């Protein structure tokens, strides 16, 4: 599960979508996005970022999970509220959600959802 290069990647190279968590955001605060991506990178899980026209964090996360080949999506609304969702979970029951301040932990947990290790809690982080 070694991390290759994170962040945006041209989808569909060689006709295949590389495995990645999908991050959908609505004019998300770049600092929030950076923290989420950092959390994912630290865990060694690739991520693809896309911008969405509208929707709340939960809807974005659910939509992102549906298109992610790993089945895991992250949604960020204009306020920086973050939600982590799994494609197999009911729409209204996300795996995790939190305010902008918890972005790093949300990134970690989106990655941990992929690699299947227990979630990190906000109080565990030293940040």
């Amino acid at each position, binding site marked *: 599960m070694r991390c290759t290069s994170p962040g945006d990647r041209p989808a569909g190279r060689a006709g295949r979508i590389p495995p990645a968590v999908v991050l959908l955001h609505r004019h998300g605060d770049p600092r929030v996005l950076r923290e989420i991506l950092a959390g994912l990178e*630290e865990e060694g899980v690739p991520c693809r970022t896309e911008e969405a026209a509208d929707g709340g964090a939960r809807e974005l996360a659910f939509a992102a999970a549906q298109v992610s080949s790993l089945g895991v999506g992250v949604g960020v609304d204009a306020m920086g509220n973050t939600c982590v969702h799994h494609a197999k*979970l009911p729409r209204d029951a996300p795996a995790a959600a939190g305010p902008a301040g918890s972005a790093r932990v949300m990134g970690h947990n989106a990655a941990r959802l992929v690699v299947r290790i227990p979630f990190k809690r906000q109080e565990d982080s030293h940040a």
Partner: protein
Amino acid sequence: MSLVVGVDIGNSTTEACATLVGEHGEMTFLSGALGGTTGVKGTVENVSGVVEVVRRALAAAGRDPADLAAVLVNEATPVISGLAMETITETIITESTMIGHNPDTPGGAGLGVGTTVAFAGLPDCAAGSAVICVVGAGVDFEDAAAGINAATLRGVRVTGVVAHADDANLIANRLREPVPVVDEVTLVDRVPLGMRAAVEVAEQGRTIRTLSNVYGIATVFELDPEQTRLIAPVARALVGNRSAVVVRTPAGDIADRRIPAGTLTLIGEQTKRSVEMDAGAAEIMDTLRRVRPLVDAAGEPGTHVGGMLARVRDTMSELTEMPVDGVRIQDVLAVDTFVPQRITGGLAGEFALESAVALAAMVRTSKGPMELLAERLRAALGCEVLIGGVEADMALLGALTTPGTDRPLAILDLGGGSTDAAVSSGDGAHSVHLAGAGDLVTNLIDSELGLDNLELAEEIKKFPLAKAESFFHIRMEDGTARFFQEPLPADAFARVLVLTDAGMHPIPTRHGVEKIREVRRSAKHRVFVVNALRALEQVAPGGDIRHLGFVVVLGGSALDFEIPDMISEAVAAFGVVSGTGNVRGTEGPRNAVATGLVVSHAAARAVMERALHIPR
């Protein structure tokens, strides 16, 4: 026909058996009931528990309490056990010489050696010098990587990084030259600067090779044999880690010391012997075997064992309202255990497994105020209350109602506080009460897994484990999978769960299913199998378990999902028929004493009847 209820007041539960007894002693069992014992066994506080359980038994049988002819109560001698645990080794790091912990995600791989320097001090480093960069709290990973890259460009050889935040991969991914990065070092400010240090990170799926090897450390730091001898405990403490940091400070040391645990004196009827606590459980139990039967035990004052026994005595005297010096310890069970303890002087919350000895002690108190209890019960129930025979005799009679059993029969009663055994012989029963049972198992599980949560430890003891593998399925400890309609809660995700009858509870540790299962089974083995053999040996004719015919396992812990199998396996070696009791063919390992009381009562009645009708 008369309606009687046999009542067994146990240490933790009160059990009842409602029966119709005919004139010739024929019995029709109606129902059984079980409730919690109120107060200490054998005291008047038991009344409310007894009344409740009698009421329940009659209700289950559909009988009117007004028809109740008699309640039969056992002769209850409170047998109480206490336990204590003390570590006998301790690991101390002085002058912060090492960081040995397992962050989830260290960065890079390999071994780096250099002088420790703070991140802020990096620009002042001379080109060509080898350094280990210490990144404190609040430094962003991009700034850290940029700073290190700038230094590298100047010709400073940054060979390793120690970081405060969970940042290792973020930093490592941004470095021009890949180096090992150890992160999540909580007390990074206490890493000594300007000292020679080594940082090692192993590839994924591997453990470190150099810093966990004493000669590896000696090579890195160019140590002489005497210095190598001193550093040996550091290497040992780092074995099994994926990442480590060793800082060589002039006075730094890691000590691995044994705590003087004291001497335990066992006083038998004939002789008296002393044994050092840190000799371990086997030695202590061996000494006990040589002084048996035990009259009392004493611990050297001012030592750990002295404190342990003092605590047991205090608890006992509090429970039984006996003077402290009147408490006599009649059996002890010593068990070797280990306790994960935070290393004194560690920088990243490192734990070391310290050796410990757990000691359970059993105290037999004077007979409770049975007459007074009977009188109160008479008033509360409005019927005759008879105090029945000796508890062990009654348990044997009850156990004999298990289909397929016969004399000579031995019972093994696995309780919460004590393990009891009795065997029927010509002149009544011969019985023993030994220290150590379910409560000790719970305590061992709690401390060995470092849970600090007795409730959870109790659940781990009683119920099987599973691992949440997705939001919709779990993998049971036997390898089978179980699926769910509703998604599991997020706090259960990827965790080991204990499947209690009140739902699944996540176990908040990093231990895997295998490890937790191993600790659970080993704790049960060290307590119940050891005690079962010890108990049977003491009641068997001539001390030889082979001379027992049938062994019936009774008591609350006999309901456990694996203890009876462990005992059967251990006893099978002696060619004895052993299994879990099934009192009256319906009650399982419960209700033996209550049933025995009724059987004994009916038999007495039949004898009386015959005596009255002997034709002259």
